[in-house]
Protein backbone atom coordinates (compact mmCIF):
# COMPACT_ATOMS: atom_id res chain seq x y z
CA UNK A 1 0.00 0.00 0.00
CA UNK A 2 2.78 2.37 1.01
CA UNK A 3 4.71 1.58 -2.14
CA UNK A 4 1.67 2.14 -4.24
CA UNK A 5 1.14 5.58 -2.77
CA UNK A 6 4.80 6.43 -3.23
CA UNK A 7 4.63 5.26 -6.79
CA UNK A 8 1.53 7.36 -7.35
CA UNK A 9 3.32 10.36 -5.93
CA UNK A 10 6.27 9.83 -8.18
CA UNK A 11 4.01 9.71 -11.18
CA UNK A 12 2.04 12.76 -10.17
CA UNK A 13 4.93 14.85 -8.92
CA UNK A 14 6.73 15.76 -12.14
CA UNK A 15 3.50 16.93 -13.68
CA UNK A 16 2.73 19.11 -10.66
CA UNK A 17 6.26 20.35 -10.28
CA UNK A 18 6.41 21.83 -13.71
CA UNK A 19 3.06 23.45 -13.16
CA UNK A 20 3.80 25.30 -9.92
CA UNK A 21 7.17 26.57 -8.79
CA UNK A 22 8.38 28.65 -5.87
CA UNK A 23 9.96 32.05 -6.35
CA UNK A 24 11.47 32.92 -2.98
CA UNK A 25 12.61 36.01 -1.14
CA UNK A 26 14.37 36.20 2.22
CA UNK A 27 14.68 39.29 4.37
CA UNK A 28 18.25 38.16 4.98
CA UNK A 29 20.26 35.21 3.75
CA UNK A 30 22.84 35.53 6.49
CA UNK A 31 22.55 35.96 10.24
CA UNK A 32 25.48 37.67 11.91
CA UNK A 33 26.10 36.76 15.53
CA UNK A 34 27.58 39.85 17.13
CA UNK A 35 28.40 40.52 20.77
CA UNK A 36 24.93 41.93 21.41
CA UNK A 37 23.12 39.28 19.35
CA UNK A 38 19.68 38.83 20.82
CA UNK A 39 18.00 36.47 18.42
CA UNK A 40 16.87 37.20 14.91
CA UNK A 41 13.71 37.20 12.87
CA UNK A 42 13.84 36.08 9.28
CA UNK A 43 11.06 37.08 6.97
CA UNK A 44 10.45 34.42 4.32
CA UNK A 45 8.17 35.37 1.46
CA UNK A 46 7.58 34.25 -2.07
CA UNK A 47 5.24 33.61 -4.91
CA UNK A 48 4.06 30.58 -6.86
CA UNK A 49 4.97 30.73 -10.52
CA UNK A 50 2.66 28.83 -12.85
CA UNK A 51 2.08 28.67 -16.60
CA UNK A 52 -1.44 27.29 -16.35
CA UNK A 53 -4.46 28.58 -14.41
CA UNK A 54 -4.78 27.65 -10.74
CA UNK A 55 -5.71 23.93 -10.60
CA UNK A 56 -9.15 23.08 -9.32
CA UNK A 57 -9.72 21.25 -6.05
CA UNK A 58 -8.30 21.81 -2.58
CA UNK A 59 -6.34 25.02 -2.08
CA UNK A 60 -2.60 25.34 -2.16
CA UNK A 61 -0.89 25.04 1.22
CA UNK A 62 2.63 26.11 2.11
CA UNK A 63 5.14 24.68 4.58
CA UNK A 64 8.30 26.59 5.45
CA UNK A 65 11.04 24.96 7.49
CA UNK A 66 14.37 26.33 8.67
CA UNK A 67 16.91 23.70 9.66
CA UNK A 68 20.18 24.22 11.48
CA UNK A 69 23.31 22.10 11.04
CA UNK A 70 22.96 18.56 12.31
CA UNK A 71 25.39 17.04 14.75
CA UNK A 72 25.55 13.95 16.97
CA UNK A 73 24.03 14.29 20.43
CA UNK A 74 24.52 12.07 23.46
CA UNK A 75 21.29 11.58 25.38
CA UNK A 76 21.55 10.32 28.94
CA UNK A 77 18.75 9.02 31.12
CA UNK A 78 18.73 9.29 34.90
CA UNK A 79 17.53 6.53 37.19
CA UNK A 80 17.30 6.26 40.93
CA UNK A 81 20.17 4.16 42.23
CA UNK A 82 21.25 3.97 45.88
CA UNK A 83 18.78 6.73 46.69
CA UNK A 84 20.15 9.31 44.28
CA UNK A 85 19.43 10.13 40.64
CA UNK A 86 22.30 9.22 38.38
CA UNK A 87 22.85 8.81 34.65
CA UNK A 88 22.49 5.18 33.70
CA UNK A 89 21.61 4.58 30.05
CA UNK A 90 22.95 6.71 27.27
CA UNK A 91 22.37 6.76 23.56
CA UNK A 92 23.98 8.70 20.75
CA UNK A 93 21.51 10.23 18.33
CA UNK A 94 23.68 10.28 15.22
CA UNK A 95 22.41 13.49 13.76
CA UNK A 96 20.02 15.94 15.30
CA UNK A 97 19.58 19.44 13.89
CA UNK A 98 20.69 22.20 16.25
CA UNK A 99 17.69 24.28 15.18
CA UNK A 100 14.41 23.26 13.58
CA UNK A 101 11.41 25.46 12.90
CA UNK A 102 8.41 24.47 10.80
CA UNK A 103 5.72 26.94 9.81
CA UNK A 104 2.55 25.83 8.02
CA UNK A 105 -0.41 27.56 6.43
CA UNK A 106 -2.93 25.20 8.08
CA UNK A 107 -2.88 22.49 10.79
CA UNK A 108 0.06 20.21 10.12
CA UNK A 109 -1.89 17.00 9.55
CA UNK A 110 -4.03 18.77 6.96
CA UNK A 111 -1.20 20.20 4.89
CA UNK A 112 0.87 17.04 4.76
CA UNK A 113 0.06 13.33 4.88
CA UNK A 114 2.11 10.94 6.96
CA UNK A 115 3.54 9.30 3.89
CA UNK A 116 4.72 12.57 2.46
CA UNK A 117 6.14 13.55 5.84
CA UNK A 118 8.10 10.29 5.85
CA UNK A 119 9.44 11.01 2.40
CA UNK A 120 10.43 14.62 2.85
CA UNK A 121 11.22 14.47 6.60
CA UNK A 122 9.31 17.62 7.35
CA UNK A 123 8.08 17.20 10.92
CA UNK A 124 10.57 17.40 13.79
CA UNK A 125 10.03 13.75 14.73
CA UNK A 126 10.86 12.62 11.23
CA UNK A 127 13.87 14.91 10.92
CA UNK A 128 15.45 13.32 13.98
CA UNK A 129 14.27 9.78 13.61
CA UNK A 130 15.22 9.47 9.97
CA UNK A 131 18.81 10.28 10.62
CA UNK A 132 18.65 9.17 14.22
CA UNK A 133 19.59 6.42 16.56
CA UNK A 134 19.96 2.69 16.37
CA UNK A 135 16.38 1.63 16.93
CA UNK A 136 17.40 -1.83 18.17
CA UNK A 137 18.07 -0.37 21.63
CA UNK A 138 15.02 -0.75 23.79
CA UNK A 139 13.21 2.48 24.42
CA UNK A 140 15.38 4.27 21.88
CA UNK A 141 12.37 6.26 20.82
CA UNK A 142 12.16 7.77 24.29
CA UNK A 143 15.65 9.14 23.80
CA UNK A 144 14.92 10.86 20.50
CA UNK A 145 11.67 12.18 21.98
CA UNK A 146 13.71 13.60 24.84
CA UNK A 147 15.90 15.49 22.36
CA UNK A 148 12.78 17.07 20.87
CA UNK A 149 11.24 17.84 24.26
CA UNK A 150 14.38 19.46 25.66
CA UNK A 151 15.09 21.49 22.52
CA UNK A 152 11.46 22.57 22.22
CA UNK A 153 11.72 23.78 25.79
CA UNK A 154 14.84 25.75 24.86
CA UNK A 155 13.04 27.30 21.89
CA UNK A 156 15.32 25.60 19.39
CA UNK A 157 12.67 23.31 17.94
CA UNK A 158 9.24 24.62 17.11
CA UNK A 159 6.24 23.88 14.98
CA UNK A 160 4.17 26.96 14.16
CA UNK A 161 0.91 25.91 12.60
CA UNK A 162 -1.20 28.46 10.72
CA UNK A 163 1.58 31.01 10.64
CA UNK A 164 2.15 31.06 6.90
CA UNK A 165 -0.17 33.53 5.19
CA UNK A 166 -1.21 32.53 1.67
CA UNK A 167 -2.97 35.03 -0.63
CA UNK A 168 -4.87 33.96 -3.72
CA UNK A 169 -2.94 30.66 -3.73
CA UNK A 170 -0.05 32.64 -5.14
CA UNK A 171 1.68 34.81 -2.56
CA UNK A 172 2.89 33.50 0.78
CA UNK A 173 4.87 34.92 3.65
CA UNK A 174 5.93 34.01 7.18
CA UNK A 175 8.54 35.00 9.71
CA UNK A 176 10.74 32.62 11.66
CA UNK A 177 12.12 33.67 15.04
CA UNK A 178 15.59 32.46 15.79
CA UNK A 179 16.52 32.44 19.49
CA UNK A 180 19.60 34.11 20.92
CA UNK A 181 21.19 30.77 21.83
CA UNK A 182 22.01 30.02 18.23
CA UNK A 183 24.95 27.92 17.09
CA UNK A 184 26.65 28.95 13.89
CA UNK A 185 26.66 26.94 10.69
CA UNK A 186 24.90 26.49 7.36
CA UNK A 187 21.17 26.68 7.86
CA UNK A 188 18.67 25.66 5.22
CA UNK A 189 15.28 27.13 4.45
CA UNK A 190 12.96 24.64 2.75
CA UNK A 191 9.63 25.47 1.17
CA UNK A 192 7.02 22.82 0.33
CA UNK A 193 3.90 23.52 -1.70
CA UNK A 194 1.18 20.95 -1.05
CA UNK A 195 -2.30 20.13 -2.31
CA UNK A 196 -4.50 17.75 -0.33
CA UNK A 197 -1.52 16.67 1.70
CA UNK A 198 0.70 15.86 -1.27
CA UNK A 199 3.88 17.81 -2.00
CA UNK A 200 3.67 19.44 -5.42
CA UNK A 201 6.84 21.48 -5.37
CA UNK A 202 9.86 22.06 -3.17
CA UNK A 203 12.47 24.74 -2.95
CA UNK A 204 15.64 25.01 -0.89
CA UNK A 205 17.98 27.87 -0.07
CA UNK A 206 20.83 28.43 2.35
CA UNK A 207 20.97 30.81 5.29
CA UNK A 208 24.43 31.51 6.60
CA UNK A 209 24.64 31.90 10.37
CA UNK A 210 28.07 33.19 11.40
CA UNK A 211 29.81 34.83 14.27
CA UNK A 212 31.34 38.14 13.21
CA UNK A 213 33.73 40.72 14.63
CA UNK A 214 35.08 40.14 18.11
CA UNK A 215 33.04 36.96 18.49
CA UNK A 216 34.66 35.54 15.37
CA UNK A 217 38.20 36.54 16.41
CA UNK A 218 37.91 35.08 19.91
CA UNK A 219 36.30 31.86 18.72
CA UNK A 220 38.90 31.28 16.00
CA UNK A 221 41.75 32.14 18.34
CA UNK A 222 40.51 29.74 21.04
CA UNK A 223 40.52 26.91 18.50
CA UNK A 224 43.64 27.70 16.51
CA UNK A 225 45.91 29.33 19.08
CA UNK A 226 44.72 27.78 22.36
CA UNK A 227 47.94 28.49 24.26
CA UNK A 228 47.97 32.18 23.32
CA UNK A 229 44.23 32.37 23.93
CA UNK A 230 44.70 30.91 27.41
CA UNK A 231 47.58 33.25 28.22
CA UNK A 232 45.59 36.20 26.89
CA UNK A 233 42.61 35.26 29.06
CA UNK A 234 44.84 35.09 32.11
CA UNK A 235 46.55 38.39 31.23
CA UNK A 236 43.20 40.14 30.81
CA UNK A 237 41.96 38.66 34.09
CA UNK A 238 45.06 39.67 36.03
CA UNK A 239 45.16 43.16 34.48
CA UNK A 240 41.52 43.72 35.37
CA UNK A 241 42.07 42.38 38.87
CA UNK A 242 45.08 44.59 39.45
CA UNK A 243 43.47 47.60 37.74
CA UNK A 244 40.30 47.47 39.79
CA UNK A 245 42.27 46.89 42.96
CA UNK A 246 44.43 49.96 42.32
CA UNK A 247 41.48 52.10 41.29
CA UNK A 248 39.59 51.12 44.41
CA UNK A 249 42.56 51.92 46.65
CA UNK A 250 43.09 55.34 45.04
CA UNK A 251 39.39 56.04 45.43
CA UNK A 252 39.52 55.33 49.15
CA UNK A 253 42.67 57.40 49.71
CA UNK A 254 41.04 60.50 48.28
Amino acid sequence: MLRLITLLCLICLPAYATEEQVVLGLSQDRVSITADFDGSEILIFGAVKREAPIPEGPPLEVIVSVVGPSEPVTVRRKEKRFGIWINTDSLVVDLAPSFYAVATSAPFNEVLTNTEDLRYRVSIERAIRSVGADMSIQGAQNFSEAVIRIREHEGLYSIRQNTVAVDEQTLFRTSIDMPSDLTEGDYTARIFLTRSGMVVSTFETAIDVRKVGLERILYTMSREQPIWYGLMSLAIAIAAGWGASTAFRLLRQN
Partner: protein
Amino acid sequence: MQIYLPIAEVSVNAFLLFGLGGMVGILSGMFGVGGGFLMTPLLFFIGIPPAVAVATEANQIVASSFSGVLAHFRRRTVDLKMGTVLLIGGLAGAALGVIVFNYLKSLGQVDLLVKLCYVVFLGIIGSLMFIESLNAIRKSRKGGTPPPKRRQRGWIHAMPFKMRFRTSGLYISVIPPVIIGLFVGVLSAIMGVGGGFIMVPAMIYLLGMPTKVVVGTSLFQIIFVTAFTTMLHATTNYTVDVVLAVLLLVGGVVGAQIGTVIGARMPAEQLRVLLAALVLVVCGKLALDLLLQPSELYSLGDAGGH
Protein backbone atom coordinates in the same frame (compact mmCIF):
# COMPACT_ATOMS: atom_id res chain seq x y z
CA MET B 1 21.46 44.16 28.06
CA GLN B 2 21.87 40.78 26.40
CA ILE B 3 25.32 39.69 25.38
CA TYR B 4 26.32 36.70 23.25
CA LEU B 5 29.18 34.62 24.65
CA PRO B 6 31.45 33.40 21.83
CA ILE B 7 32.61 30.13 23.39
CA ALA B 8 29.58 29.22 25.49
CA GLU B 9 27.36 30.07 22.49
CA VAL B 10 24.55 31.39 24.62
CA SER B 11 23.12 34.84 25.12
CA VAL B 12 22.88 36.10 28.70
CA ASN B 13 22.11 39.33 30.49
CA ALA B 14 25.33 41.25 31.14
CA PHE B 15 24.01 42.86 34.34
CA LEU B 16 23.11 39.45 35.76
CA LEU B 17 26.73 38.44 35.25
CA PHE B 18 28.02 41.69 36.86
CA GLY B 19 25.76 40.99 39.83
CA LEU B 20 26.82 37.38 40.23
CA GLY B 21 30.47 38.37 39.93
CA GLY B 22 30.08 41.13 42.53
CA MET B 23 28.27 38.92 45.03
CA VAL B 24 30.80 36.13 44.75
CA GLY B 25 33.64 38.70 44.81
CA ILE B 26 32.47 40.03 48.18
CA LEU B 27 32.53 36.51 49.62
CA SER B 28 35.93 35.94 48.08
CA GLY B 29 37.38 38.96 49.81
CA MET B 30 35.67 38.23 53.13
CA PHE B 31 36.52 34.58 53.52
CA GLY B 32 39.56 34.05 51.33
CA VAL B 33 37.70 31.46 49.32
CA GLY B 34 37.79 31.72 45.55
CA GLY B 35 34.02 31.57 45.43
CA GLY B 36 34.08 28.93 42.73
CA PHE B 37 32.06 26.47 44.78
CA LEU B 38 29.22 28.99 44.64
CA MET B 39 29.80 30.50 41.21
CA THR B 40 30.10 27.25 39.26
CA PRO B 41 26.62 25.96 40.24
CA LEU B 42 25.16 29.47 39.70
CA LEU B 43 26.54 29.49 36.15
CA PHE B 44 24.88 26.11 35.53
CA PHE B 45 21.59 27.61 36.68
CA ILE B 46 21.71 30.51 34.20
CA GLY B 47 22.35 28.10 31.35
CA ILE B 48 26.10 28.15 30.76
CA PRO B 49 27.28 24.71 29.59
CA PRO B 50 29.00 22.98 32.56
CA ALA B 51 32.33 22.46 30.75
CA VAL B 52 32.52 26.18 29.93
CA ALA B 53 31.40 27.18 33.43
CA VAL B 54 34.14 25.15 35.11
CA ALA B 55 36.94 26.35 32.83
CA THR B 56 35.86 30.00 32.79
CA GLU B 57 35.39 30.00 36.53
CA ALA B 58 39.04 29.01 36.96
CA ASN B 59 39.97 32.05 34.88
CA GLN B 60 37.69 34.33 36.88
CA ILE B 61 39.05 33.04 40.21
CA VAL B 62 42.55 34.10 39.10
CA ALA B 63 41.32 37.68 38.73
CA SER B 64 39.28 37.94 41.91
CA SER B 65 42.03 36.26 43.94
CA PHE B 66 44.64 38.56 42.43
CA SER B 67 42.99 41.74 43.65
CA GLY B 68 42.31 40.02 46.97
CA VAL B 69 45.90 38.92 47.44
CA LEU B 70 47.19 42.43 46.64
CA ALA B 71 45.14 43.75 49.53
CA HIS B 72 46.59 41.03 51.78
CA PHE B 73 50.15 41.72 50.64
CA ARG B 74 49.78 45.33 51.72
CA ARG B 75 48.60 44.18 55.14
CA ARG B 76 51.48 41.66 55.24
CA THR B 77 49.16 38.73 55.82
CA VAL B 78 50.61 36.38 53.23
CA ASP B 79 53.01 33.61 54.25
CA LEU B 80 54.97 33.32 51.01
CA LYS B 81 57.05 30.36 52.16
CA MET B 82 54.02 28.35 53.21
CA GLY B 83 52.20 29.46 50.05
CA THR B 84 55.01 28.15 47.86
CA VAL B 85 55.04 24.79 49.63
CA LEU B 86 51.26 24.52 49.18
CA LEU B 87 51.62 25.57 45.55
CA ILE B 88 54.10 22.78 44.73
CA GLY B 89 51.55 20.24 45.93
CA GLY B 90 48.75 22.14 44.19
CA LEU B 91 50.27 22.07 40.70
CA ALA B 92 50.96 18.35 40.94
CA GLY B 93 47.42 17.83 42.20
CA ALA B 94 45.83 19.84 39.38
CA ALA B 95 47.64 17.75 36.76
CA LEU B 96 46.53 14.58 38.53
CA GLY B 97 43.00 15.95 38.79
CA VAL B 98 42.75 16.58 35.06
CA ILE B 99 43.76 12.96 34.38
CA VAL B 100 41.06 11.74 36.80
CA PHE B 101 38.53 14.18 35.29
CA ASN B 102 39.15 12.93 31.75
CA TYR B 103 38.84 9.33 32.91
CA LEU B 104 35.47 10.04 34.55
CA LYS B 105 34.37 11.90 31.44
CA SER B 106 35.02 8.81 29.36
CA LEU B 107 32.73 6.92 31.75
CA GLY B 108 29.96 9.53 31.32
CA GLN B 109 29.66 10.00 35.08
CA VAL B 110 31.57 13.21 35.54
CA ASP B 111 28.53 15.33 36.51
CA LEU B 112 27.46 12.92 39.22
CA LEU B 113 30.92 12.62 40.73
CA VAL B 114 31.43 16.38 40.67
CA LYS B 115 28.15 16.85 42.55
CA LEU B 116 28.90 14.05 44.99
CA CYS B 117 32.28 15.63 45.70
CA TYR B 118 30.53 18.93 46.40
CA VAL B 119 27.98 17.39 48.74
CA VAL B 120 30.51 15.29 50.68
CA PHE B 121 33.18 17.97 51.08
CA LEU B 122 30.87 20.92 51.66
CA GLY B 123 28.86 18.86 54.13
CA ILE B 124 31.83 17.74 56.21
CA ILE B 125 33.68 21.06 56.18
CA GLY B 126 30.53 23.11 56.75
CA SER B 127 29.38 21.08 59.75
CA LEU B 128 32.82 21.00 61.35
CA MET B 129 33.30 24.75 60.98
CA PHE B 130 29.82 25.53 62.18
CA ILE B 131 30.17 23.52 65.41
CA GLU B 132 33.70 24.74 66.03
CA SER B 133 32.87 28.43 65.56
CA LEU B 134 29.70 28.23 67.65
CA ASN B 135 31.73 26.69 70.47
CA ALA B 136 34.34 29.43 70.14
CA ILE B 137 31.70 32.16 70.31
CA ARG B 138 30.05 30.52 73.34
CA LYS B 139 33.39 30.32 75.13
CA SER B 140 34.24 33.96 74.50
CA ARG B 141 30.77 35.02 75.68
CA LYS B 142 31.15 33.16 78.99
CA GLY B 143 33.46 35.98 79.92
CA GLY B 144 36.99 36.06 81.23
CA THR B 145 39.92 35.08 79.14
CA PRO B 146 39.46 31.93 77.09
CA PRO B 147 41.69 29.10 78.23
CA PRO B 148 45.04 29.23 76.44
CA LYS B 149 44.95 26.91 73.48
CA ARG B 150 47.23 23.94 73.82
CA ARG B 151 49.58 23.52 70.91
CA GLN B 152 48.94 20.15 69.37
CA ARG B 153 52.05 17.99 69.49
CA GLY B 154 50.66 15.08 67.53
CA TRP B 155 51.66 13.17 64.45
CA ILE B 156 52.12 16.30 62.36
CA HIS B 157 55.00 17.40 64.53
CA ALA B 158 56.68 14.01 64.45
CA MET B 159 57.25 14.16 60.68
CA PRO B 160 60.64 14.78 59.06
CA PHE B 161 61.69 17.64 56.69
CA LYS B 162 60.86 20.36 59.17
CA MET B 163 60.91 23.94 58.02
CA ARG B 164 60.47 27.25 59.81
CA PHE B 165 57.58 29.43 58.60
CA ARG B 166 58.24 32.80 60.21
CA THR B 167 55.11 34.64 59.12
CA SER B 168 52.92 31.87 60.51
CA GLY B 169 55.12 31.31 63.53
CA LEU B 170 55.35 27.59 62.82
CA TYR B 171 58.12 25.02 62.77
CA ILE B 172 56.60 21.97 61.09
CA SER B 173 57.29 19.33 58.50
CA VAL B 174 56.65 20.29 54.84
CA ILE B 175 54.81 16.99 54.22
CA PRO B 176 51.38 18.05 55.58
CA PRO B 177 51.24 21.33 53.57
CA VAL B 178 52.36 19.55 50.38
CA ILE B 179 49.68 16.90 50.87
CA ILE B 180 47.02 19.56 51.58
CA GLY B 181 48.12 21.45 48.43
CA LEU B 182 48.00 18.27 46.36
CA PHE B 183 44.55 17.37 47.64
CA VAL B 184 43.22 20.88 46.94
CA GLY B 185 44.81 20.81 43.46
CA VAL B 186 42.99 17.57 42.61
CA LEU B 187 39.69 18.97 43.87
CA SER B 188 40.10 22.25 42.00
CA ALA B 189 40.64 20.42 38.72
CA ILE B 190 37.70 18.06 39.24
CA MET B 191 35.22 20.47 40.80
CA GLY B 192 36.15 23.70 39.04
CA VAL B 193 36.82 25.58 42.27
CA GLY B 194 39.78 27.38 43.80
CA GLY B 195 39.67 25.04 46.77
CA GLY B 196 39.80 27.71 49.47
CA PHE B 197 36.86 26.18 51.29
CA ILE B 198 38.98 23.06 51.91
CA MET B 199 42.33 24.77 52.31
CA VAL B 200 41.30 27.46 54.80
CA PRO B 201 39.97 25.01 57.42
CA ALA B 202 42.84 22.61 56.76
CA MET B 203 45.36 25.39 57.40
CA ILE B 204 43.62 26.47 60.59
CA TYR B 205 42.82 23.09 62.09
CA LEU B 206 45.53 20.79 60.70
CA LEU B 207 48.53 23.10 60.40
CA GLY B 208 47.54 25.44 63.20
CA MET B 209 48.22 28.61 61.20
CA PRO B 210 46.97 31.95 62.55
CA THR B 211 43.61 32.87 60.99
CA LYS B 212 44.87 36.26 59.77
CA VAL B 213 47.58 34.71 57.58
CA VAL B 214 45.39 31.89 56.29
CA VAL B 215 43.24 33.95 53.92
CA GLY B 216 46.08 35.72 52.10
CA THR B 217 48.19 32.58 51.85
CA SER B 218 45.37 30.49 50.42
CA LEU B 219 44.60 33.22 47.84
CA PHE B 220 48.27 33.17 46.85
CA GLN B 221 48.19 29.41 46.22
CA ILE B 222 44.79 29.58 44.46
CA ILE B 223 45.99 32.13 41.88
CA PHE B 224 48.69 29.86 40.52
CA VAL B 225 46.74 26.61 40.69
CA THR B 226 43.68 28.10 38.93
CA ALA B 227 45.91 29.77 36.32
CA PHE B 228 47.39 26.34 35.63
CA THR B 229 43.90 24.81 35.44
CA THR B 230 42.76 27.57 33.05
CA MET B 231 45.63 26.80 30.70
CA LEU B 232 44.88 23.07 30.82
CA HIS B 233 41.22 23.69 29.92
CA ALA B 234 42.03 26.27 27.23
CA THR B 235 44.45 23.95 25.47
CA THR B 236 42.60 20.65 25.78
CA ASN B 237 38.87 21.39 25.89
CA TYR B 238 38.71 24.92 24.36
CA THR B 239 36.15 25.86 27.00
CA VAL B 240 37.51 29.12 28.46
CA ASP B 241 35.12 31.94 27.55
CA VAL B 242 37.07 35.16 27.98
CA VAL B 243 34.00 37.39 27.49
CA LEU B 244 32.16 35.58 30.26
CA ALA B 245 35.24 35.74 32.48
CA VAL B 246 35.66 39.49 31.94
CA LEU B 247 32.00 40.19 32.72
CA LEU B 248 32.18 38.13 35.91
CA LEU B 249 35.40 39.71 37.08
CA VAL B 250 34.26 43.29 36.49
CA GLY B 251 31.82 42.67 39.32
CA GLY B 252 34.18 40.29 41.05
CA VAL B 253 37.19 42.54 41.56
CA VAL B 254 35.09 45.36 42.99
CA GLY B 255 33.26 42.89 45.20
CA ALA B 256 36.53 41.41 46.46
CA GLN B 257 37.74 44.86 47.56
CA ILE B 258 34.54 45.49 49.49
CA GLY B 259 34.74 41.99 50.94
CA THR B 260 38.30 42.44 52.18
CA VAL B 261 37.28 45.61 54.03
CA ILE B 262 34.25 43.90 55.60
CA GLY B 263 36.38 40.88 56.53
CA ALA B 264 38.96 43.02 58.31
CA ARG B 265 36.26 44.68 60.45
CA MET B 266 34.37 41.58 61.49
CA PRO B 267 35.46 39.24 64.30
CA ALA B 268 37.02 36.02 63.02
CA GLU B 269 34.54 33.70 64.78
CA GLN B 270 31.45 35.34 63.34
CA LEU B 271 33.09 35.33 59.93
CA ARG B 272 33.56 31.59 60.26
CA VAL B 273 29.95 30.98 61.33
CA LEU B 274 28.79 32.88 58.25
CA LEU B 275 31.04 30.91 55.94
CA ALA B 276 29.96 27.61 57.55
CA ALA B 277 26.27 28.50 57.08
CA LEU B 278 26.88 29.42 53.45
CA VAL B 279 28.75 26.19 52.77
CA LEU B 280 25.90 24.18 54.32
CA VAL B 281 23.25 25.96 52.22
CA VAL B 282 25.06 25.19 48.96
CA CYS B 283 25.61 21.61 50.13
CA GLY B 284 21.92 21.20 50.96
CA LYS B 285 20.81 22.53 47.60
CA LEU B 286 23.11 20.16 45.71
CA ALA B 287 22.06 17.20 47.87
CA LEU B 288 18.39 17.94 47.15
CA ASP B 289 19.13 17.96 43.42
CA LEU B 290 20.54 14.46 43.72
CA LEU B 291 17.81 13.12 46.00
CA LEU B 292 14.65 14.57 44.41
CA GLN B 293 13.39 13.29 41.12
CA PRO B 294 14.44 15.75 38.41
CA SER B 295 11.65 17.13 36.23
CA GLU B 296 13.60 16.11 33.14
CA LEU B 297 15.15 12.65 33.38
CA TYR B 298 17.06 13.03 30.13
CA SER B 299 19.99 15.30 29.42
CA LEU B 300 21.82 16.19 26.23
CA GLY B 301 25.54 16.38 25.67
CA ASP B 302 28.04 16.47 22.86
CA ALA B 303 28.64 13.03 21.49
CA GLY B 304 31.72 11.34 22.83
CA GLY B 305 32.29 14.11 25.30
CA HIS B 306 30.82 15.90 28.24
